[in-house]
C-alpha cells in the first residue's frame, strides 16, 4: 500500500512559478528573464508583481544567459526561463563561460524537459540537458518531483549562492510531497524503506517509483524508494547506505542513460561498492510526438517499466 496520496495533479513548472513569486517577495535581488515564453514557463505572476524586475529578452537565449551573468555579477539573483532544450543545448557555451566558469549566481530554470512535453516532439524534448549541466564544474543540478517540491526548491535555489540548473516539467503529475517541507539542496529523501531493492528516482519518475514499490510489495519484494531531486551534488551517503542494505539498485529518470542520474549513481557505486544496477530512462534515442503519458508508457518511463527493471536486477543479485 502506497503511504503517499495526492489530492490533485499539478505541473512542476507552476510550482516554480509560485516559488519564484514568493522568492521575489523575500529577496529584492531576484530578477527574472524570459525568452518569449513567459506564460509557458510560468513567470507571469512574477512579471505582474515585479514588472521592474522582469526582463523580456525576446527569442535570444544566448543573450539571455550572458545577460543574466552580468546581472548576477552586479548583485542580482537572475532566474532565466525557457524550455530545457533551449536553456541548455542551445546555450551550452554561454553557460560554460559566463555562468559556470565565471561562477556567477545565475539560476537556469528549465521547464518542458523530457518526453512528457508531448506532441511537440523530439526538438522540444530535452533528454540530454542534465548530463550537459552536470558535467560543468561549479554547477548544481536540481530536478524536483512534484509541484510542492518545485515550489520549495525554487526558494532554496534563490537562497543558494552559485550557478544552478533547475529542471521542471510540463504535464500535471501527482502532487504528493509535504508542501511545507523545506528543500535541502544535495539531500535525497528516502520515501519508502525496504530491504530488497533500491529505486532511486528523480523528477517525474518519483511517483511511478512509489507505484512500482506497491506492485513489488504485492509480489513479496520490499523496495526502498529514494527521491533524489538533487542530481549534483549527488547525495552519495544516502545511496550508499541504501545499497549496502538492498544489494541492488534501479535508477529512474526521464533522461538519457548517458549523463543522467543512472550515470551518476553508476559512476559513484563502481568506485565504492560495485552493485548490480539497472536503469530506467532513454537508451540513446530521441523522443517523438504523442500524448505525454502515452510517451512515458511507450518508453517504459512508468511503474511497469520500473518493476520490470527491478525484477531484472533482483535476478542478477540472486546469481
Amino acid at each position: 500500500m502506497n503511504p503517499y496520496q495526492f489530492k490533485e495533479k499539478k505541473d512542476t513548472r507552476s510550482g516554480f512559478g509560485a516559488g519564484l513569486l514568493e522568492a521575489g517577495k523575500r529577496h529584492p535581488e531576484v530578477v527574472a528573464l524570459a525568452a518569449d515564453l513567459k506564460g509557458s514557463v510560468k513567470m507571469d505572476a512574477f512579471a505582474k508583481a515585479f514588472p521592474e524586475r522582469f526582463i523580456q529578452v525576446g527569442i535570444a537565449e544566448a543573450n539571455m544567459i550572458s545577460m543574466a551573468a552580468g546581472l548576477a555579477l552586479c548583485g542580482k539573483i537572475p532566474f532565466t526561463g525557457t524550455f530545457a532544450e533551449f536553456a541548455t543545448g542551445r546555450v551550452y557555451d554561454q553557460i560554460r563561460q559566463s555562468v559556470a566558469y565565471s561562477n556567477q549566481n545565475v539560476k537556469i530554470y528549465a521547464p518542458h524537459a523530457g518526453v512528457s512535453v508531448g506532441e511537440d516532439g523530439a526538438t522540444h524534448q530535452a533528454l540530454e540537458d542534465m548530463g550537459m549541466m552536470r558535467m560543468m564544474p561549479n554547477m548544481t543540478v536540481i530536478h524536483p518531483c512534484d509541484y510542492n517540491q518545485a515550489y520549495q526548491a525554487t526558494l532554496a535555489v534563490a537562497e543558494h549562492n552559485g550557478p544552478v540548473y533547475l529542471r521542471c516539467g510540463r504535464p500535471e503529475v501527482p502532487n504528493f510531497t509535504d508542501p511545507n517541507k523545506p528543500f535541502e539542496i544535495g539531500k535525497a529523501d528516502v520515501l519508502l524503506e525496504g530491504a530488497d531493492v533500491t529505486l532511486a528516482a528523480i523528477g517525474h519518475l518519483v511517483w511511478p517509483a512509489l507505484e512500482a514499490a506497491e506492485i513489488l510489495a504485492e509480489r513479496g519484494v520490499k523496495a526502498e524508494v529514494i527521491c533524489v531531486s538533487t542530481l549534483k551534488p549527488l547525495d552519495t551517503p544516502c545511496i550508499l547506505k541504501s545499497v549496502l542494505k538492498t544489494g541492488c539498485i534501479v535508477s529512474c529518470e526521464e533522461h538519457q542513460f548517458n549523463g543522467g542520474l543512472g550515470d551518476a549513481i553508476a559512476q559513484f557505486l563502481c568506485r565504492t561498492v560495485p552493485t548490480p544496477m539497472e536503469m530506467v530512462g532513454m537508451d540513446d534515442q530521441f523522443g517523438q510526438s504523442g500524448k505525454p503519458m502515452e510517451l512515458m508508457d511507450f518508453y517504459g518511463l512508468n511503474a511497469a517499466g520500473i518493476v520490470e527493471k527491478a525484477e531484472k536486477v533482483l535476478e542478477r543479485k540472486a546469481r
Partner: protein
Amino acid sequence: MLNTTELNATACQIRRDVIRMIHGAKSGHTGGSLGCADYFTVLYFNVMRHNPQAFRMDGKGEDLFFLSNGHISPVLYSTLARCGYFPIEELGTFRKLHTRLQGHPSTQHHLPGIRMASGSLGQGLSNAVGAALAKKMDGDAGIVYTLHGDGELGEGQIWEAAMFAGAKGVDNLIATIDYNGLQIDGSTKAVLDLGDLRAKFESFNWTVLEMNGHDVAEIEKTLNRAKGLCGQGKPVMILMKTEMGHGVDFMVNDNKWHGTAPNDEQAAAALAQLPVTLGDY
C-alpha cells in the same frame, strides 16, 4: 589624469609589456593587443571611474569594463597592472602554470580587475547589457564599457545583444569595436564582409561614433562625448579605426600576427621600436 605625452608614454610601455609577456610565454595574441594599447590607456587612466586599489567584484558605484575579445588579454593585463590592480611583476607569469593571468581572462584565479571570463567570442556585449541593467535597477550612475573585435561581429549573439540594447534603450553602455579589418584567416572583407557597420548599428537604434584608435587625444575626446550621450535613450557604439600590430613596423596590418608570438629576434626588434618609459616589469 595623464596629459597627452604621458598617455603616449604609458601606451608605449604597455606595448613593451605586451611583447615581453607574449615572448615570455612563447604564446599569445600580439596584433590586437598592440592595436588596442592606446584605447586601454585612455580608458583606464583618464575616462573610467574605477578603484584599482580596492577592487570589488560587483563594481558597485564604479564604471565597469568587459573585454569581449578575450584573446587580447595581454593588453588588458598590462593596463590593469600599470593602473595598480596588481603588481607589474606578475605580468611575467602570463600563460604559465598556476598564473592568475590566464591565456584568456578568467575569474577562477581571482585576478583583480577581471569580472567575467571571456575567450569564446560574442558574449561580452550581453554580459555588459546585463550589468548595465543591474546598474539602472540600483540607481547606480556607473557606465559599462566593452571592447569587441571586428571579426567577432560574425557571432550572432552580438546582434542579439545589439538588438536588445537598442530596443530597450540601454543607455549606460558604451561599446567599442576594434575596427582593424583583419581576422585570423585574412581581411574581414574576405572572410565575412562587415558591410556598413555604422548603418547597421544605427538601424539597431544605437548612436554610432568613430575615432582614430591611435590618437590618444581623439580617443579621450570621443569617449567623453560618448559619456555625454549616456542617459539619452540609446546605447553608444564607437567604431575605432586601428591597425593590428600598431607600434611595431613589421607587425602592422599583417594578420599573421593575430595569434603569433615573436621569437627572440623578433621580440628584440620589436622592443627596439618601443622605448622604455615607465620601466619594465
